[in-house]
């Protein structure tokens, strides 16, 4: 770890310490009252006008598609969880060994669909790929290393919950606490990494930009460090299985979560990588346009990290 990494971790540690008491689960936590709908309070309108607005298609088609995607993913996760709970209880009562394979299969699916939703380092991986130029296999490898670190840290938290907490202290509360910490830790780090990357690229600007001659970046290590924040899906799965007396199955199921999560993150990596290649391939390697596009990718990756890091970091306070 270089000096920059040390400073980064110190800052992240500071963030962790200052936010440790906060929680996120609405049922247990005690945040300031906030409501996004109140923030964007509608002006009172005639009732008929309001009703007419509801019938309208949303202004952006892609936004509607995105909304459908989020809703569909939520529905699928619900169905997986329902089936998972049912099969686990069936296994408990009937001791049908065939159910174990199904439990693992469902945790595998849960890993895929849960990581399709917000978080799970996809923005990091994407921004890294936009900024750097990894080979496809390296991108997949990075995705799986990230998923493994993320899930295994979740497993460690789960085991701590299982073996140390006997009084009232719901695992959901722990997850909620972790979630807020995860959010702030991640977004603080995203912003700092973005600033660092932007600084690096702007510093190189006066020279002839040659991507192939760039020093191999070590940002992937920082991306792995983001994975250290525990995966809530893993915590939920393992603590539920342990409450059913199936600790060993819970531990093994983490491997299947990693497999599933890795597929989603890898897919995002590969799509990002090939999208970038697709654009770069359309112009000559020797041309100024190529250099310009490459620079735009690199700088915009860093700017994205700063913008979204700051935005989401700020959002965790409201």
């Amino acid at each position: 770890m270089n000096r920059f990494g040390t400073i980064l971790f110190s800052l992240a540690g500071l963030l962790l310490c200052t936010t440790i008491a906060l929680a996120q689960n609405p049922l247990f936590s005690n945040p300031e009252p906030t409501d996004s709908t109140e923030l964007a309070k509608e002006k009172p309108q005639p009732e008929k006008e309001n009703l007419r607005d509801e019938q309208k298609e949303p202004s952006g088609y892609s936004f509607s598609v995105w909304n459908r995607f989020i809703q569909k993913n939520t529905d699928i996760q619900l169905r997986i969880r329902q089936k998972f709970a049912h099969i686990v209880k069936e296994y408990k009562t009937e001791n049908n060994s065939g159910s174990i394979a199904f439990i693992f299969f469902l945790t595998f699916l849960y890993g895929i669909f849960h990581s399709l939703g917000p978080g799970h380092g996809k923005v990091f991986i994407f921004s890294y790929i936009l900024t750097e130029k990894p080979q496809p296999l390296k991108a997949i490898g990075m995705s799986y290393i990230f998923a493994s670190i993320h899930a295994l840290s979740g497993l460690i938290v789960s085991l701590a919950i299982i073996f140390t907490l006997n009084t009232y202290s719901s695992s959901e509360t722990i997850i909620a606490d972790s979630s807020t910490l995860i959010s702030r830790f991640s977004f603080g780090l995203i912003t700092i990494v973005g600033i660092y990357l932007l600084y690096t690229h702007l510093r190189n600007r006066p020279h002839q930009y040659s991507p192939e001659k760039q020093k191999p970046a070590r940002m992937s290590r920082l991306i792995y460090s983001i994975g250290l924040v525990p995966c809530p899906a893993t915590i939920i799965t393992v603590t539920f299985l342990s409450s059913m007396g199936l600790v060993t199955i819970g531990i093994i199921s983490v491997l299947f979560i990693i497999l599933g999560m890795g597929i989603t993150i890898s897919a995002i990596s590969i799509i990002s990588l090939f999208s970038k290649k697709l654009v770069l391939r359309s112009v000559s390697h020797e041309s100024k346009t190529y250099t310009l596009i490459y620079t735009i990718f690199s700088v915009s990756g860093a700017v994205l990290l700063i913008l979204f890091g700051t935005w989401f970091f700020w959002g965790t306070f409201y």
Partner: protein
Amino acid sequence: MKYIKTVYILFIVLLLAKTGYAHLHIFIHTDIDIYYNATGIEKLHVQFHFDEIFSEDLMKNFDADKNKSFSTKEIAEIKSKAFSNLKNYNYFIHIRAGGEKITIKDVSNFSARIDDGIVIYSFDVQKHIPVSRENTTIKISPYDHSYYIAVYLNKQNIRFHNTDSFIHNYSVIEDKSQAYYYEQIYPETIVLQTRRKS
């Protein structure tokens, strides 16, 4: 062709950027009973059915005697430790009458029970909404704006009571005007059109 590729890239950027950060970890299905009195809507009776996994967690923490039932004391503890904070979230029940948002500061008759491995919260939202001879539009949307909990509306369990003096009809829509969580989620909303009979 280059433009198409650029647009494609931008789409990917937006898609990934939109993934935000919060995760949903709990699922609730909501039953809503709407009670009228002589002058309008008297109250809503709300029931939250938690998913089996979170139900297990609640039982582990609050069913101290492990008898698959919550005693009065256990319910009081649930209310104190795993319900009362919802006042900061409008109890996940967002009401608009005539375009005006109605804030819910308190609820009554809280109870919790276990039914076939599912924990169910129930409570009353005592909010009088006057209904005149003019048509009134009331929107009721169950959702958690923080998107930590996915709150579904049980469409088959929307019930009306004491409606003899009123005309009512309703539909359930995805309410785009109440999009929440970075405008990404449209809550399921009961749009109730009601008026007093002449």
